[in-house]
């Protein structure tokens, strides 16, 4: 079920439903969209120039489903998530687009209105479990404060729920251990605490920014499993942000690929994995091991490095690293175009009749 609409910048946008949620779930047999980005832009005004960290991004996520936001480090994934949370710090700010959630545009809300949404309706799990928990407060304190603020729970009630949640995420002896400090927990256990905390107020959406990147490979799978299991159980939509396409293979229904602040490919996970259309996505797949497949004999990293976001080249941002580039790539920026059902890519060659030569 894909609607094709014309975006602000007249690019074709592949979203799973027309924007603003004006068709209901019942109409098309799909779950309703809970969060939708419509041409989101976030720029940093630095002395070196305007860094266009997020530059016109569209995607959405439906109730209870998992989508992935994938791209190399520096492609704008974290800034996108922080933008949704209203937490981009100066000199950065949202400079355009809409963040549609619950019938409102979050980009227009006041700080206080956003505070009521943060951690309550939209929660976030961060990458660094070592530094994202406060070292001088007990796990109990850090688990319960959100519930006390948003759900108006009494400390005792919140503590009881904290024990339940910590047990659910697989922390043994939670009743005793929650009185300990973060440095008494291993990295994997801390990330479980973060996940339990994020789930504590029954959010509609969880933004998980590289939730397992800092962990050992074996622990990564366990933590993802726990997070996905609970999100499913609580019907929480999850956006898993990662630079490792292999990690999300098993969980995400849709995959959005970002490069240099823009979306370059979007599609159902299966299509992205079996039939990537953008040379960048193709490169990403070659460069990472997959959790659910036997280890490939050789991994091929993408050559070169991401461009300077303050000085983007004319044309396609990926051109300096692209082995399929044609003349047009250096002149015009490719727009998102359908390359298959529910599958779009921003690449001149992929959109041409012959498609990407493989």
């Amino acid at each position: 079920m894909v609607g094709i609409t014309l975006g602000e910048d007249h690019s074709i946008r592949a979203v799973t439903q027309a924007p603003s949620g004006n068709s209901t779930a019942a109409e098309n047999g799909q779950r309703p969209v809970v969060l939708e980005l419509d041409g989101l832009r976030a720029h940093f005004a630095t002395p070196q120039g305007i860094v266009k960290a997020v530059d016109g991004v569209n995607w959405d996520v439906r109730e209870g489903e998992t989508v992935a936001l994938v791209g190399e480090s520096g492609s704008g994934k974290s800034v996108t998530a922080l933008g949704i949370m209203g937490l981009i710090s100066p000199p950065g700010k949202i400079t355009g687009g809409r963040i549609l959630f619950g019938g409102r545009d979050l980009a227009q809300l006041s700080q206080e209105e956003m505070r009521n949404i943060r951690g309550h309706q939209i929660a976030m799990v961060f990458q660094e479990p070592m530094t994202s928990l406060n070292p001088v407060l007990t796990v109990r304190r850090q688990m319960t404060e959100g519930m006390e603020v948003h759900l108006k729970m009494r400390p005792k009630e919140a503590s009881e729920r904290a024990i339940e949640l910590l047990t659910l995420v697989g922390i043994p002896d939670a009743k005793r251990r929650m009185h300990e400090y973060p440095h008494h927990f291993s990295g994997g256990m801390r990330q479980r605490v973060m996940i339990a905390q994020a789930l504590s107020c029954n959010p509609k959406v969880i933004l998980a920014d590289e939730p397992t990147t800092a962990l050992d490979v074996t622990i990564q799978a366990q933590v993802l499993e726990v997070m996905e299991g609970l999100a499913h159980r609580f019907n929480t939509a999850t956006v898993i942000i990662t630079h490792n396409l292999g990690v999300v293979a098993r969980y995400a229904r849709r995959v959005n690929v970002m490069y240099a602040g823009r979306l370059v490919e979007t599609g159902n996970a299966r299509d992205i994995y079996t039939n990537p259309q953008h040379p960048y996505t193709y490169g990403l797949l070659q460069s990472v091991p997959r959790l659910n497949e036997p280890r490939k004999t050789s991994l091929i990293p993408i050559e070169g490095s991401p461009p300077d976001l303050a000085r983007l080249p004319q044309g396609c941002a990926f051109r300096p690293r692209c082995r399929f580039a044609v003349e047009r790539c250096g002149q015009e920026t490719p727009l998102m175009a359908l390359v298959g059902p529910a599958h779009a890519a921003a690449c001149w060659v992929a959109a041409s009749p012959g498609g990407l030569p493989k």
Partner: protein
Amino acid sequence: MRRYIVRRVLASIPVLAVVAIITFGILHLTPGDPAEVIAGPDARPEDVEAIRTRLGLDRPAIVQFGNWIGSLAQGDLGVSAFSGQRVTSLIAERIGPTVSIAVLAAVFAISLGIPLGVLAAWKANTWIDRTVMLFAVLGLSLPAFLLGFVIMWILGIKFQLLPVAGYARLSEGFGEYLKYLVLPSLTASLTLMALITRMTRASTLEVLREDYIRTARAKGLQERLVLFRHALRNAALPILTVVGFGLAFLVSGLVIVESVFAVPGMGRLLVDAIRQRDYSIIQGVVLTVSVFYVLVNLTVDLLYSYVDPRVRY
């Protein structure tokens, strides 16, 4: 935790021993013969000799030290060479005003300095921050007595809100007691307050960049909780250190403050004793203040481990 406390308390014993030796040394290291000074310029040699014998100054230093420590252990600091009063009772008489001013000054410095520092860090690089920091710089660069006169003039003379000199005992009523304390305490607190404000700002500013502050905000906590629950406790260690050092400065500053506001405290006792070379009193006051320093240090150390669980051994 308990073992750490015990160890830390035991560790202050050698420090106290060193303090005792140095305090005793005051008598012998200062120039001039104490017996001659006490006897006065016109005294006959046999009078000086008599005083020397009476004070035990003719005996070997080690014996004198032994005797001194012996009486010290019994809480005896000797008698004033001039008035013959017991040093312990002289100190007891004068310690009330000094401790009152010191405590109130510390309360002022901490309860105003910390929130101001947090505010400045929170509003970093805005006019609020700049204003707060301007006052902090003034507080640090102007001498206490000058500030004392300015405050005395504004609150005491221009607006006649508070008495400008003297001291009222607690027995004369709490309101009266407090009224006389405010001006000297405020004056004594300014330097420490400025120091605490600056350290709190610097330390909080650093902490506000940490990932866990972003986590706290992502939870939708009110800024008040983000700042005072999440940031301040992490910023507390350097602030505590400054409070510890600062209290020592504050107490030395009391000598001047007590003179400016005519408060009959230990500072005045010390100044008078130094003028008269009344060694027992000097030793008694120095010893009392040193014990206070050691206690402050001990408290700061114990607070470290309370504030930051990672410091626990």
